[in-house]
């Protein structure tokens, strides 16, 4: 019987190898995969987020912890799917049309995957049509948009309007972020949420799908 505290520690410290090893052993010992995620891995990522907020962790630590989490989840996800469990949620993420900056978007995508979300990364310079397609064809629960420039942030409103026009606005939660974005702007354009950093974005996404 593996010591599951080690799984928690491995995710917190970003030790992908140990995280996978313990996960394998735990699954072989017949431990419920969902229990591994909810009782050990998710609390570990919460701790990682706490350390980031407390300035104990920085971007590299976030990324390696997210990778450890993702590696372990890759072992677990097929089992969950096989028994009909769904991922926490499906997020279509992209940098809006006219904007090619992707550090922030990629960071949020990595952390969302670490948080158990299925992430459809649409890339940069994403048109409203592509977001709509992701909602229609891929059944995304969340549309997450990023913009770094004050000149491209209006594309967020254009995209939200296009989602409304296409009749799918009610099916998704729209989350936005990026250097020039504020809560006020999110409210103005009718987005469902805004976060000023990547850790907050995961919490926001969980709230949006009702798991936190």
């Amino acid at each position, binding site marked *: 019987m593996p010591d599951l505290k080690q799984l928690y520690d491995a995710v917190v410290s970003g030790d992908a190898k140990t995280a996978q090893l313990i996960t394998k052993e735990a699954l072989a010992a017949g431990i419920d995969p969902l229990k591994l995620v909810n009782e050990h891995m998710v609390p570990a990522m919460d701790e990682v987020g706490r350390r980031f907020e407390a*300035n104990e*962790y*920085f*971007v*590299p*630590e976030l*990324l390696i912890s997210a990778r450890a989490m993702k590696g372990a989840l890759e072992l677990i996800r097929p089992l969950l799917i096989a028994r009909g469990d769904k991922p926490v949620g499906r997020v279509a993420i992209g940098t809006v049309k*006219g904007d*090619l*900056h*992707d*550090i922030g978007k*990629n*960071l949020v995508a*990595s952390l969302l995957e670490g948080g158990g979300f299925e992430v459809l990364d649409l890339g940069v310079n994403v048109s409203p049509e592509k977001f709509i397609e992701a909602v229609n064809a891929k059944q995304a629960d969340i549309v997450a948009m990023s913009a770094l*420039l*004050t*000149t*491209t*942030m209006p594309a967020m409103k254009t995209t939200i309007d296009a989602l409304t026009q296409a009749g799918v606005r009610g099916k998704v939660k729209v989350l936005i972020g990026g250097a*020039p974005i*504020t809560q006020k*702007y999110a409210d103005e354009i009718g987005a469902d949420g805004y976060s000023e950093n990547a850790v907050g974005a995961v919490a926001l996404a969980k709230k949006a799908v009702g798991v936190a």
Partner: protein
Amino acid sequence: MHPLLEELLSQGPVITDGAWGTELQARGLGAGETPDLWNLTHPERVGEVAAAYVAAGSRVILTNTFGANRIRLAEAAAGDQAGEINARGVEISRQAAAGRARVFASIGPTGKLLMNGDVTEAELWAAFREQARALAGAGADALVVETMSDLAEATVAIGAARETGLPVVASMVFDSGKEKDRTMMGNTPEQAVQALITAGADVVGANCGQGAAGFIGICRRMRAVTDRPIWMKPNAGLPIMVAGQPRYTTTPEEFAGSIPALVQAGANLVGGCCGTRPEFIVAAGRALRHR
């Protein structure tokens, strides 16, 4: 020390320049436009900015090439013009300097994160090598690898800059952590100095990220671990957001007031970053002379 640096620093601390982007915007550059492209389309206006800093007393001016690496220019579909944009940038600054100031050519970050796989190390090498060669070929006196948040990317840029044989300044952004004394990637001033020097920087320092008050401690910590010249370019204080745009409220006098303390803390080359203008450089020069 490189002879050029030795000569430049022989009479004490040197005043560099202030921000360029805001000066170009004041001359009509649109908020979403790529400033570097103006080297080709509006060279006379870029030259005005350079000349304004020379007139303000800058003994070192930079170039309008901060974002002129192939990776970043690709965002404006101008990746293939990298060589020309960099060469013109140096020529414009050299012409404005007219022998009264040294031209330190600017190399900024690509905007991609190596660790997250946004870009490969080989792609970074190619982009920075191309930029550094173009800048050196056009007659830059030195190269400045600036506004770096990631030591891994800075290391590649410094390596590429070094290949030209010119003196290399390397400057990081400290804007993270409780005390704002860490880079985005969590590195301390001490770690930064060590990594930058190991990579081959002749001058190390900090720019952007915060106002001068926070730079004093960073400068002191850098000085404690190196004898190399130190480069410091703080912002004009902390911006307040007005209609989604940052506005800097620090006055030139307030900014200049902290310059002597920065020199006291060990800085050898001082200037300003975001929010600073030629008036700030005039005031900083006055503060240094009356120190």
